[in-house]
């Protein structure tokens, strides 16, 4: 794992449980849990003034296996996309569903998105401060609409929660973020259709060169004030893929960002192979957009 390289001296000392601080004040078990979210396939979320969109890439473990569900509906106004350990996501979304039901039962109102996401954040924090459990190994994008409008939150195993205009989690999601950072100023006024297109383009940027989005591996979900949380899968998602194809047939990538390597699951052979491939083709530039900025590091965002 990447983290081992950074702290090679202390290996096996401070990273055995979530209740031990390293001498620099870090909690490695929590950081490793965050790594688990980067092993999962990518999910992308975007918000306009009216809509929230989630798009996600589904994986199948083997050719004859089914594709892993990536988007879970919580309530009519709320849903999540996951990256990482799917069973952990099911536990958290089950909890969210209980919260949503309770809000309807007790107050006759839908659960607010912030209250929803902080409820699981506080639950996740407990697992980072006491023994007898492990941190959750999943990241979530929580999308929903409430009286204050549409919202998109990113949830991390550390119990950290932040509200974004556009966010991406999972394998190679840095490529998506790069796209989102370039386009996010257009999101607020984007239509429902445009927002989904932006989402699909961002998701496509996470793909290896020989992979493409198809109706089997792509999930789209939308929610707005007047539209219940709707998930498009399989034949239903084709309409959106068609839109994407009419927009630009070939991939918008002429480069591959090598800045994102500390996000990457280097030990994942497939991903490493994919990256090697894409790096090799970086100069050939088969995409229409050729000159693009290199992806800035997420933590270092000087203009």
């Amino acid at each position, binding site marked *: 794992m990447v983290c081992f390289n950074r702290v090679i001296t202390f290996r096996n000392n401070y990273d055995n449980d979530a209740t031990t601080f390293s*001498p620099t004040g870090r909690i490695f078990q929590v950081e490793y849990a965050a790594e688990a979210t980067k092993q999962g396939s990518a999910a992308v979320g975007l918000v306009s003034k009216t809509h929230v969109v989630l798009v996600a890439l589904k994986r199948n473990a083997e050719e004859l296996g089914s594709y892993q569900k990536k988007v879970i509906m919580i309530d009519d106004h709320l849903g999540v996309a996951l990256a990482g350990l799917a069973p952990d996501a099911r536990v958290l979304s089950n909890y969210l569903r209980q919260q949503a039901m309770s809000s309807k039962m007790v107050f006759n109102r839908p659960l607010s998105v912030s209250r929803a996401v902080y409820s699981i954040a506080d639950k996740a924090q407990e697992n980072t401060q006491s*023994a007898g459990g492990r941190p959750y190994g999943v990241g979530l994008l929580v999308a929903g609409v409430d009286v204050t409008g549409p919202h998109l939150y990113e949830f991390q195993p550390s*119990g950290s929660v932040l509200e974004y205009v556009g966010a991406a989690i999972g394998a190679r999601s840095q490529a998506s973020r790069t796209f989102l950072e370039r386009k996010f100023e257009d999101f607020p006024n984007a239509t429902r259709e445009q927002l989904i297109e932006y989402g699909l383009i961002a998701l496509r940027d996470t793909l290896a060169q020989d992979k493409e989005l198809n109706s089997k591996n792509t999930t789209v979900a939308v929610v707005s004030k007047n539209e219940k949380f709707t998930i498009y899968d399989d034949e239903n998602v084709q309409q959106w893929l068609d839109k994407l194809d009419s927009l630009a047939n070939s991939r918008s990538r002429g480069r591959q960002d090598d800045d994102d390597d500390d996000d990457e699951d280097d030990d994942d052979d497939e991903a490493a192979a994919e990256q090697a491939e894409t790096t090799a083709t970086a100069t050939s530039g088969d995409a229409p957009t050729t000159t693009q900025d290199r992806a800035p590091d997420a933590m270092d965002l000087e203009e």
Partner: protein
Amino acid sequence: MTSIGTGYDLSNSIFSPDGRNFQVEYASKAVENAGTSLGIRTKDGIVLATEKIITSKLLVPNKNKRIQTIDRHVGVVYSGLIPDGRHFVNRGRDEAESFRSLYKEPIGIPGLLDRLGYYVQAYTCYNSVRPFGINAIVGGIDDDGPHLYMVEPSGVYWGYYAAAAGKGRQTAKAELEKLDLTTISTRDAVKEAARIIYLAHEDNKDKEFELELTWISKEETNGLHKFVPKDLLEEAIKYAEEEGDDDGSSDSSSDEEMDD
């Protein structure tokens, strides 16, 4: 770091031969590199401020609030592990509510801190938990007037005229000491808090930040913990930027030269 390799720092609740609890010290390390927070106690109120580091331009501006309310009359700002801070605040809210349900009146600030200090201390006593990775600055007004405290990962808490935590705490403390905290008005303290956060940010210059400011004052907010109104926030930021330019004009120019 004489602690490393001794084995006494691998578990919480363990004393080293010279009587230290290393896990608590390591928890403090989580605070030392975090965004700067500060609190000021004035004649009739409290000001809390924090430097919220912006890690991505995709974050929604002015959301993701960091300063929280424990009760109507009590505010908290913390530096360190944010989820730990929320845990701390939730506990404070529970304590405030349980006090109110028992005594039918709002909890006093020293009493609240007594309970919170107790809670944080308990997280240094067992190897099944780890200490809180935060320094929390808690301010509020009760019948005895304004109070300001800072709780540390060890569970220790002291009362302050002004307190600072996080990366820029040294700069902030030096500036806070220059203020006349016995006479300053809460409104002026808001502006000074903004200026000091901007100044402390110099230690963290490569990252963008958002300033968050709250206050409690009998006169201005009727004793309630509130975010400062937009116009005052803008005024404070303007003051902070102007003062910053005046103070460090020579510094910033030399910085530019170095950059070039």
